[in-house]
């Protein structure tokens, strides 16, 4: 069957958008798929309809708008609300919208699925009103919903950035409960000189912290031992320790943040090799400098190839597209190398801050190894205690844990619990191999599959 496209890109965030533009500008035929109703990814979500976008979101706003405008370039086909559930060996991309499945084919596929939040686990994290900060940001950007008197818990650049956005939007958080310790900062200091090329980003971070201080947001540092319970009025009561002292604070909504991790399900189900990133405590695909994976014709760029942030993602998307253009003979090797120089420099500069950030905001061990009563698998309601017990009873790997206590067997397919199950097993000295993922990576209705197999491959709507 003939390929309809030169390149299919899955994910219209900064990496996907810059790749689409680079490829189309060089005459390639591109199909860009995204699950959302509009382009932008999580960072530039719904950016075009933001009121006062610039004053709240800063320069993110302009960058995002420019990237979105360039999607009008000839040669880019856009499909939104398209959720990709399988990529097979022949690089058929199977996606579904409104319960109808479609197949698109190309010689090259680029995955730019971005990241998801690392879930922050403590007793009560499953209660209504406890959400990751990223979720609050989505509600703010796509629906103009601002959390009422939110308590922000955790640490990391995104936590402070959201605090600043809330202050600017007129919904200042009630408190910021920070897990940071001075020791973590001290340890990170030695990576500071190396981060100098990313000085602008560093200074931005300092300014955010000043803005939070100026807004007189109540701040607790060195916090640990979190638990949330529901009050009689369906508010949430967060109890914790700060600098060793017991504290309590009540609020309608609690927003957590504990770093982000690459979204890897689709890549893993397509057979891409992955590895464990010790510093960032997450698994990520093995890719070369261009984003090429072990599967020929399959590249990965942006946060789903390893957390780097929007600037890195933009550069990586461009680099992957240039390599794909070269592999498809749209440009020569020399042209690829010349065109990529700037992007490599840009990426190196943006990446230079990573070592500092990774050490300054290492995920806390306590949050990685939850107490026995804490739910680990939300879907099947499996606690950390049940997982530990299954190990005592002889489960000798993630798969056995899955089958005995059903952790990771629910509809989210382990996206939320897998990292925690792994850390718990490792702490019990159980060896864990890297997890496989199976397709469909999104639930697909049986009727949809039947309709798909009845239709010919060429039959599109």
């Amino acid at each position: 069957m003939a390929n309809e496209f030169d390149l299919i890109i899955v994910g219209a965030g900064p990496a996907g958008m810059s790749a689409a533009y680079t490829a189309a500008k060089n005459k390639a035929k591109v199909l860009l798929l995204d699950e959302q109703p509009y382009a932008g990814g999580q960072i530039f979500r719904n950016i075009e309809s933001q009121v006062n976008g610039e004053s709240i979101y800063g320069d993110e706003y302009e960058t995002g708008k420019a990237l979105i405008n360039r999607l009008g370039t000839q040669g880019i086909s856009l499909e939104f609300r398209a959720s990709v559930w399988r990529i097979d060996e022949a690089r058929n991309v199977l996606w579904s919208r409104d319960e109808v499945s479609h197949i698109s084919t190309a010689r090259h596929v680029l995955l730019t699925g971005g990241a998801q939040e690392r879930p922050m686990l403590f007793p009560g994290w499953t209660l209504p009103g406890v959400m990751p900060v990223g979720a609050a940001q989505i509600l703010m950007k796509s629906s103009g919903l601002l959390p009422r008197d939110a308590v922000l818990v955790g640490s990391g650049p995104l936590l402070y950035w959201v605090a600043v956005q809330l202050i600017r939007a007129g919904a200042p958080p009630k408190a910021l409960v920070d897990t940071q310790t001075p020791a973590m900062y001290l340890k990170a200091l030695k990576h500071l000189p190396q981060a100098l090329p990313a000085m602008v980003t560093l200074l931005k971070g300092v300014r955010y912290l000043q803005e939070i201080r100026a807004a007189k947001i109540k701040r607790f540092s060195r916090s640990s031992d979190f638990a949330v319970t529901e009050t009689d009025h369906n508010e949430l009561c967060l109890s914790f320790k700060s600098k060793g002292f017991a504290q309590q604070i009540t609020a309608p909504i609690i927003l957590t943040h504990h770093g982000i991790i690459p979204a890897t399900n689709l890549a893993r189900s397509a057979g891409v090799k992955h590895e464990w990133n010790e510093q960032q405590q997450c698994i990520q695909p093995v890719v070369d400098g261009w984003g090429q994976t072990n599967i020929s014709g399959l590249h990965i760029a942006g946060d789903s190839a390893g957390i780097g942030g929007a600037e890195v993602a933009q550069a990586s998307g461009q680099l992957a597209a240039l390599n794909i253009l070269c592999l498809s003979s749209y440009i020569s090797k020399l042209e690829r190398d010349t065109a990529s120089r700037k992007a490599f420099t840009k990426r190196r500069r943006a990446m230079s801050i990573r070592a500092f950030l990774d050490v300054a905001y290492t995920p806390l061990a306590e949050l990685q190894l939850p107490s026995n009563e804490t739910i680990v698998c939300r879907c099947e309601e499996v606690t950390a205690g049940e997982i530990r017990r299954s190990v005592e009873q002889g489960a000798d790997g993630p798969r056995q844990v899955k089958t005995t206590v059903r952790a990771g067997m629910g509809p989210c397919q382990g996206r939320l619990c897998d990292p925690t199950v792994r850390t718990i097993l490792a702490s019990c000295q159980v060896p864990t191999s890297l997890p496989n993922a199976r397709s469909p990576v999104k639930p697909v209705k049986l009727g949809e599959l039947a309709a798909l197999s009845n239709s010919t491959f060429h039959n599109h709507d």
Partner: protein
Amino acid sequence: MSTASRFKARPSTNHFISLTIDGQSVLAKPGDSVAAAMLAYSGDAMRHTVKGSPRAAYCMMGVCFDCLVEVDGYPNTQACMVQVKEGMVIRRQQGLRKLKKEPTGGE
């Protein structure tokens, strides 16, 4: 008793979409996901698990599946991934729902 929304009331506009949540008329904004509309309306749970624990939308990006509700008769719909439409009938779910795609009938 219903719980007040955990989000601030939004400025009212002339553009809205009317739908029902468990039979109650609710006004949503164009572009809202079903989950956003439900969160703007009330701070209550969006579903209860098999063991009876309350849950609401968590990730808002299609990852966690904690926002499963019944939309126009279709159970187990990810509320954060579907946009509101005029006249939509939304119901909260109790426990496990039949996975079969089978409208269960609205009002």
